């Protein structure tokens, strides 16, 4: 990959991050958090995207981002109140911006009409329409359309005259309060690094020139003779007197991308009364401010943030350059913001904290694989040592214990590398909700909880589709139209709740709505119509609810745009099961439904109970097992020719012979000769699995059976035991369900015969 391409890839990765920042910021604003920190974070996100896009000449993206940024700038400046309406438009704009980013990355274009519509909507928000005339009439200056020279090197041909044609005059940033011309004095002393990073003083000056009228004088005092001159060092400094109606932040923005690579001061020749008076007390304690900045910047890109942070802090920070209209005191500021006069090393400090690296996923996976092998190897070694008769108190055995401990720790740490918060999935949902709500004409509020819950990356990747589908369903089928809701005594706005939590070694994700709940008579009727159940089947409410998971079931009588995409809940169920998860539904008529997903935290290891069945070794996932017991003859009752139930604390639980289900034996095991594992399947249904004996508990590394062989009914995966043998891992739910299906079939046969 050529370097530019690589930078571009990074840019798009960062775009994704910025987009999610943007979205969460806007959502926070929607909830009323309109403090400057949130607003600035949102602004920063859009601004960074625009800056990077400008460098790659992604014009549609830049154009749209610019309009967006302008509106946000008004919010930031307090000219536009971020009320609900404004935030809603911005959320939709964020969606379009995301589309623009994706279009720029993957090729393709964003529907012009949609983009245009949002751009106009944003412009409409920009204060009181463009009533202030463009004072100077100087369109060449085009003050709103500055080009940020991010990584434009001097010889790439894009050049300085690279400008963006405005869509409409309305885009041009208008200063509502009219052309209050002010004079600013900018001292600029480039450092060597500025040129080393392919930035160019000339471009900065040109940028300044766009803001207004400039008078430039050069200071060659430090310039050595030609013989002593290092051609790549910076010797010159400039004093620029700029007359402009633009704000100080606009001027600072010009220098945003040469952060720390130049000494810069910007002073107003006349201090306007609107600026807060600066006390001198705070000058003595600049370190608090630095700490603040560093903290605030910890998770933010250092460069663009620095200027903005400094700006936010300006009122609180010592600002020697603003201390009256005295001659400016040159302050070497890393952030370009001389106004703040703070934190020479803010950018560096931020960089030092929370360092992260991007690692190719293949490498992590390989590491995980190797650690898996290590765990197996360690188990085998331990077994060999035990077999060789070395006493448990010997040094070798103790050393092995340490090794086991260490192996386990390595495994946990490696797994933690892959663990990611579910936030990345949850964050896609607000947009989905907005779109589906718009399409169905329903009012929906999405509440998310537990976004920080971490789970393995593979699980996360495969969660998006099921959750998307469930949320679509919740809105389309679950929630009622506003008028219906009001008639039912509810608020017109429906709520969809998406939550995640860790519960006993699994992640539990719930999608719930406060809609009408499952229409059981209708579900039942449909199931009968489609021949999924018999007309006279006696089904509990729970059974009826679970019918929606049956293949071929779809409740929407008219296939709607939203849910009728040929994907039913059965697919959702299957994909969840494919992840080793379970899905359950609870529904209360008139009050809504809750779908509960329970998933393993990782797909790589499993705590299991090793059991033997007919000389075969099997592993039952520990998470499914509630208890194990030795059945007593009086507790076991036969129902039918080959079905048994067992009484466990006064409740009868089906007794399932694992050996029979898996086809290991044809004659049922005498219940009193084996061990029963009480397991809880999906939906809380319990069953007792009969096995011959329990060997012990062990953590096993999961090896996919499907990838290496093929899918086997009743078997979830395989593993390699300490002695090198392969053991199959039971799919508990499947075994229980298989038994039920068998029973249903034999019932049907009986019914047919009778």
């Amino acid at each position, binding site marked *: 990959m050529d370097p530019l391409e690589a930078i571009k890839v990074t840019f798009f990765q960062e775009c994704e991050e910025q987009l999610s920042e943007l979205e969460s910021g806007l959502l926070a604003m929607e909830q009323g958090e309109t403090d400057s920190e949130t607003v600035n974070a949102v602004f920063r996100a859009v601004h960074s995207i625009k800056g990077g896009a400008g460098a790659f000449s992604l014009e549609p993206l830049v154009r749209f981002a610019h309009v967006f940024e302008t509106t946000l700038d008004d919010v930031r400046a307090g000219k536009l109140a971020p009320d609900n309406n404004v935030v809603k438009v911005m959320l939709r704009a964020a969606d379009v911006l995301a589309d623009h980013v994706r279009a720029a990355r993957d090729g393709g274009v964003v529907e012009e009409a949609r983009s245009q519509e949002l751009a106009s909507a944003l412009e409409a928000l920009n204060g009181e329409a463009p009533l202030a005339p463009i004072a100077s009439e100087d369109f060449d200056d085009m003050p709103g359309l500055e080009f940020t020279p991010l990584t434009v090197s001097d010889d790439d041909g894009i050049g300085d005259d690279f400008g963006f044609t405005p869509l409409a005059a309305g885009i041009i940033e208008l200063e509502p309060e009219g052309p209050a011309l002010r004079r600013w004095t900018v001292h600029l002393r480039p450092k060597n690094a500025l040129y080393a990073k392919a930035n160019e*003083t000339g471009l900065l000056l040109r940028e300044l020139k766009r803001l207004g009228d400039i008078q430039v004088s050069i200071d060659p005092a430090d310039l050595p003779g030609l013989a002593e001159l290092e*051609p790549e060092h910076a010797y010159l400094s400039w004093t620029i007197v700029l007359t402009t109606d633009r704000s100080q932040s606009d001027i600072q923005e010009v220098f945003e991308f040469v952060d720390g690579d130049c000494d810069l001061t910007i002073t107003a020749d006349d201090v306007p009364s609107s600026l807060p008076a600066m006390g001198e007390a705070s000058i003595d304690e600049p370190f608090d401010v630095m700490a603040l900045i560093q903290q605030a910047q910890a998770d933010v890109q250092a460069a663009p943030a620095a200027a903005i942070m400094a700006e936010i802090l300006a009122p609180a920070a010592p600002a020697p350059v603003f201390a009256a209209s005295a001659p400016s005191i040159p302050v070497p500021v890393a952030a370009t913001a001389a106004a703040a006069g703070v934190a020479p090393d803010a950018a560096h400090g931020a960089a030092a904290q929370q360092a992260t690296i991007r690692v190719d996923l293949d490498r992590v996976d390989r590491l995980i694989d190797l650690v898996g092998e290590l765990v197996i190897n360690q188990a085998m070694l331990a077994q060999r040592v035990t077999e060789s008769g070395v006493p448990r108190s010997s040094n070798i055995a103790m050393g092995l214990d340490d090794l086991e401990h260490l192996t386990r720790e390595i495994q946990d740490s490696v797994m933690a590398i892959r663990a990611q918060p579910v936030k990345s999935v949850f964050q896609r949902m607000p947009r989905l909700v907005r779109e589906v709500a718009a399409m169905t004409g329903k009012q929906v509020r999405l509440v998310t909880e537990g976004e920080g819950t971490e789970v393995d990356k593979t699980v996360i990747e495969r969660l998006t589709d099921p959750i998307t589908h469930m949320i679509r369903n919740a809105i389309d089928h679950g929630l009622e139209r506003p008028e219906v809701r009001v008639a039912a005594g509810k608020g017109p706005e429906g709520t969809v709740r998406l939550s995640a939590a860790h519960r006993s070694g699994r992640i539990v994700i719930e999608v719930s709505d406060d809609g009408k709940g499952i229409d059981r008579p209708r579900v039942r009727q449909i199931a009968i119509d489609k021949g999924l159940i018999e007309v006279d089947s006696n089904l509990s409410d729970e059974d009826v609810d679970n019918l929606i998971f049956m293949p071929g079931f779809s409740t929407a009588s008219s296939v709607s745009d939203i849910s009728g995409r040929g994907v039913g809940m059965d697919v959702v169920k299957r994909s969840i099961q494919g992840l080793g998860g379970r899905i359950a539904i609870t529904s209360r008529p008139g009050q809504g439904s809750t779908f509960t997903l329970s998933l393993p935290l990782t797909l790589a290891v499993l705590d299991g109970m090793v059991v033997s069945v007919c000389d075969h070794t099997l592993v039952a996932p520990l998470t499914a097992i509630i208890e194990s017991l030795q059945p007593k003859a009086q507790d076991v009752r036969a129902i039918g020719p080959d079905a048994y139930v067992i009484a466990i604390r006064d409740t009868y639980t089906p007794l399932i012979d694992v050996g029979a289900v898996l086809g290991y034996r044809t004659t049922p095991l005498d219940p009193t000769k084996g061990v029963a594992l009480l397991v809880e399947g999906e939906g809380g249904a319990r069953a007792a699995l009969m096995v011959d004996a329990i060997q012990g508990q062990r953590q096993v590394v999961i090896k996919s059976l499907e990838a290496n062989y093929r899918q086997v009914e009743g078997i979830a995966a395989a593993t390699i035991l300490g002695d090198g043998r392969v053991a199959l891992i039971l799919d508990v739910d499947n075994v229980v369900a298989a038994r039920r299906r068998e029973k249903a079939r034999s019932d049907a046969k009986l019914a047919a015969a009778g």
Partner: protein
Amino acid sequence: MTEPASASRLQLIENLDLKAAGPLRSELLSLRHTPLDIDASNVQRLGGLCLQVLMSAQATWAADTIPFAISSPSPAFQEALSLFGAEDLQPFVQQG
């Protein structure tokens, strides 16, 4: 100090960006102690580093009391000088 009879001419290249600064300096150094006439007619772009080199050269030639001139400046060159506020070089720029 030797003073050759005729002035050396130096044709500036089109793109005087940061990469051109080193070569420009060497070139100028090799012409030191000779009257210099720099032809700026081809210049399309002048960056800060090359500006430094030119200004330093002008000062050096002045210190050596040897004639130094920049002739037939291109519009881009002129514009860049005024953008940079490089008054020190202006007097040496000769039109034509």
